């Protein structure tokens, strides 16, 4: 379980996160949604240790992240833009990441097959297309069979077929009891894979609960979101 409790963060006295609370449960895909600059990326970076929260508790199965970096042994992260040194080959990148963990990359071969990366192992990262880079990022995020999976716009630069395959992989991970946090602007994707959503607006959680409950009879998640915001703040 990922626990986020009363997390606050300001940049140059400008509050970005103002007491954010929610939990991500194992076996569930939790989607973090909200407009641009609402604090989604900052919150994700706080969980990853890239941004240091001013206040609050961020914990992975009761391990407070301020205690050390050990929790990252069980963490898989896929950023929006995957970037590695241009001159390293795919094999070298995978070996590098394997060398930094005590766990074996038990899912590596399976993922390389599923994501059709087998033929690119000796290619330098600089020679890969945008889609291939994203697939490599996905393989890096999942090859250690992590307990917590954090995804930032994971299918943004994937073709429809690969995006579909990747969504199936995400759902499969949750079905295997993994804790998945997905940050996405793609609401149809969220509707397809997430069971719970956190709607973040101006640094505060506006809704945290099940997707079904949030939709409450609406045609899709997008219209449900418009209805929700309209009720709260008046017409957009």
């Amino acid at each position, binding site marked *: 379980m990922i626990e986020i409790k009363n997390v606050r963060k300001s940049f140059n006295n400008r509050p970005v996160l103002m007491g954010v609370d929610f939990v991500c449960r194992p076996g569930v895909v939790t989607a973090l949604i909200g407009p641009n600059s609402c604090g989604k990326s900052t919150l994700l970076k706080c969980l*990853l*240790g*890239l*941004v240091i929260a001013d206040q609050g508790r961020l914990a992975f199965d009761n391990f407070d992240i301020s205690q050390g970096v050990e929790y*990252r042994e069980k963490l898989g992260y896929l950023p929006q833009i995957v970037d590695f*040194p241009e*001159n390293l080959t795919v094999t070298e990148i995978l070996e590098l990441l394997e060398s930094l963990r005590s766990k074996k990359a038990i899912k590596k071969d399976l993922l390389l097959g599923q994501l059709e990366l087998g033929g690119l192992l000796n290619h330098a990262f600089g020679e890969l297309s945008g889609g291939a880079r994203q697939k490599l990022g996905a393989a890096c995020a999942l090859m250690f069979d992590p307990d917590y999976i954090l995804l930032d716009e994971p299918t943004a630069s994937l073709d429809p077929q690969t995006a579909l395959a990747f969504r199936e992989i995400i759902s499969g991970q949750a079905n295997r009891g993994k804790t998945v946090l997905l940050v996405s602007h793609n609401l149809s994707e969220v509707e397809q894979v997430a069971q719970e959503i956190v709607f973040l607006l101006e640094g505060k959680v506006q809704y945290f609960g099940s997707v079904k409950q949030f939709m409450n009879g609406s045609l899709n998640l997008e219209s449900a979101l418009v209805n929700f915001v309209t009720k709260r703040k008046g017409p957009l």
Partner: protein
Amino acid sequence: MKKFWVLLAYGLRDQVRSRWVLAYGLFYFVAGVLLLQFGTDYRRYLASMANVILLLSPAVSILYSTVHWYANGSFRHLILVQPVSRPVVFFSSWLSILVGLSGAFVIGALGGPVLLGSFDARIFSILIAGLALTTVFSLLGILWAVTIRDRMKGLAGALGTWLYLAILHDGLILGILMMLRDFPMERPAMALLALNLIDIARLFLLLQFDLTALMGYTGSVLQRMARPGVGAAVIVLGSLFWILIPAIIVNRRFQNRDF
């Protein structure tokens, strides 16, 4: 510690394959060959190489490290979310840049004399000065990249730092010494000198060879003032200051930075 060596090894693989690092080494090799082939004597070769190194090594080190640090930002984020501490990531990243540039410089600068059979132990003084400049200016480049988020502003800051330390500082000291020539200026001049690693490297080379006329504006003034004991103290203390202080500041900024 194992993770540090792993990151350093992979960082070095990236550096070794970089065309910019290769071009840097090749430049010193070609410069060495040309200066030895067309120069009149070995002293003149040493003076010319010293001048090239005092100007070029700081420029390449600061600009390359700034650009490289910005360009690898996303990769560094991916490494920072692995179970690795921030000091390990910082020092391995910096050292891979430093070792890459230093390797290219040493191989390039030694290549010419070795190839032409003109090797002389005096070249080691030039190598030491070049390595010290590479160490400090690579740190200064990273300091800009860690401090300023905007890539263009960071690069402009790095370029401005090089311009000041390579050209303007020298002119400033000369102006002050000329204005106050009637006063005893040995100590103030040495203090001003220690504020610039390029001048410290120049002083170091000056004390190794008798190259006054060829060593920049302040060369002759420095030689008159720098008695061997004082000069050596300025070199040792100045170099330590210039290596330790930027390393401590950059490391601290890297530890507390939000990415």
